[in-house]
C-alpha cells in the first residue's frame, strides 16, 4: 500500500497554493493523498469544491472560527484514523494546528513556506508565530533559495530547508 500524504490548507479562496496542492496530488503517483480543508462558520470552501470536481480524496474540518479549539481535536481524530506517513502544511494556521494535534504521534510534519506577506498586523503576528513553530516541524519546503535564506535569517535554523 502506498504511504499517505495528508495536505492541509485553511483558505476559502482557490489560488496559487491551492493549485499547487492539487498539482502535487495529481502528479505524485507513488503516494496516496488526502486534502484537509479548514473552513470557518460555513464560509465557502473552494478547495473542497475543487477536490470534489477532480475526484480527489478530501475532508472538511469545520469550526466556528479560526480560533475554535475543537478543530485541534477534530484534526487529532483524523490523524488517528488515517495514519498518514507525512503531514504537509500549507499555511501558518495549519502548521500551528498540526503541531498541536499531532502531539505525541510519530508523524512527520513538512511545512510548505511560500512567503510571508505581513499584509496586516494579525497576519504579521501569525507569520511570526509560524516561524517559531517551524522549529518543531520535521522540515521546510521553500519556493526559492532566496526565500530559504530569508527564513534562516529570521530564525528558522533548526530544521532542514529544502528548495523546490
Amino acid at each position, binding site marked *: 500500500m502506498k*504511504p499517505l*500524504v495528508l495536505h492541509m490548507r485553511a483558505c476559502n*479562496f482557490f*489560488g*496559487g497554493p491551492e493549485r499547487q496542492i492539487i*498539482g*502535487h496530488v*495529481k*502528479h*505524485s*503517483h*507513488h*503516494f496516496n493523498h488526502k486534502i484537509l480543508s479548514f473552513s470557518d462558520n460555513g464560509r465557502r470552501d473552494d478547495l473542497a469544491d475543487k477536490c470534489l470536481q477532480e475526484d480527489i480524496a478530501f475532508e472538511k474540518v469545520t469550526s466556528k472560527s479560526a480560533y475554535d479549539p475543537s478543530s485541534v481535536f477534530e484534526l487529532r481524530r483524523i490523524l488517528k484514523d488515517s495514519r498518514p*506517513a*507525512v503531514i*504537509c502544511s500549507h499555511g501558518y494556521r495549519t502548521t500551528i494546528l498540526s503541531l498541536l494535534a499531532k502531539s505525541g504521534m*510519530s*508523524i*512527520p510534519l*513538512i511545512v510548505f513556506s511560500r512567503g510571508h506577506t505581513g*499584509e496586516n498586523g494579525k497576519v504579521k503576528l501569525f507569520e511570526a508565530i509560524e516561524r517559531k513553530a517551524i522549529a518543531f516541524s*520535521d*522540515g521546510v*519546503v521553500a*519556493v*526559492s*533559495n*532566496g*526565500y530559504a535564506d530569508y527564513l534562516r535569517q529570521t530564525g528558522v535554523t533548526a530544521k532542514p530547508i*529544502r*528548495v*523546490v
Partner: protein
Amino acid sequence: MDEIWPAIRASHKDASLTIVGRNPMKALAERVSSLESVKLTGTVDDVRPYVEQAVVSTKVGAEGLEVRHGENLLIADTPADFAQAVSRLFTDGTLRASMGRSGRQLVEKRYQWRRLSEKLGEIWRDAAAEKARLN
C-alpha cells in the same frame, strides 16, 4: 507607479498597465482608480492569459528560477533600468517573441510537475524515514 510607469508612458503614450492579483492594497486601488491607462484586475480565475508574454523582472522576482538575463527574460533592479527594459521589448518585436518563446520552453523543460513531484517524493520519504529512525 511613481517612477517606472511614468517613464514608460513618456516614451510609449499608448501603453497600458494591468496589475493582476487578489486583494490589492486599498491605497493602490485608490491610486489606480483615477488613471485610465492602468487596470487593476483583483482576483482572476486563471492567471495564464496575463503571463504568456516576455518578462521583465527584478532579481528578487526571479529568485530561485534557472533563468538567464537576455535569454529567458530581462532583469532590471532600478526604476530606470526597468522602464528601459520594458521599452526595449515594446520596440523590438523579434526580441519580445524570442524571449516569450524561450521563457515558455524553460518552464516546460525545468518546471514540470513530474520533476517537482520527484523532489517532493524524496522529501516526504526522507522525513518519514528520519521520523522512523528517531523512534
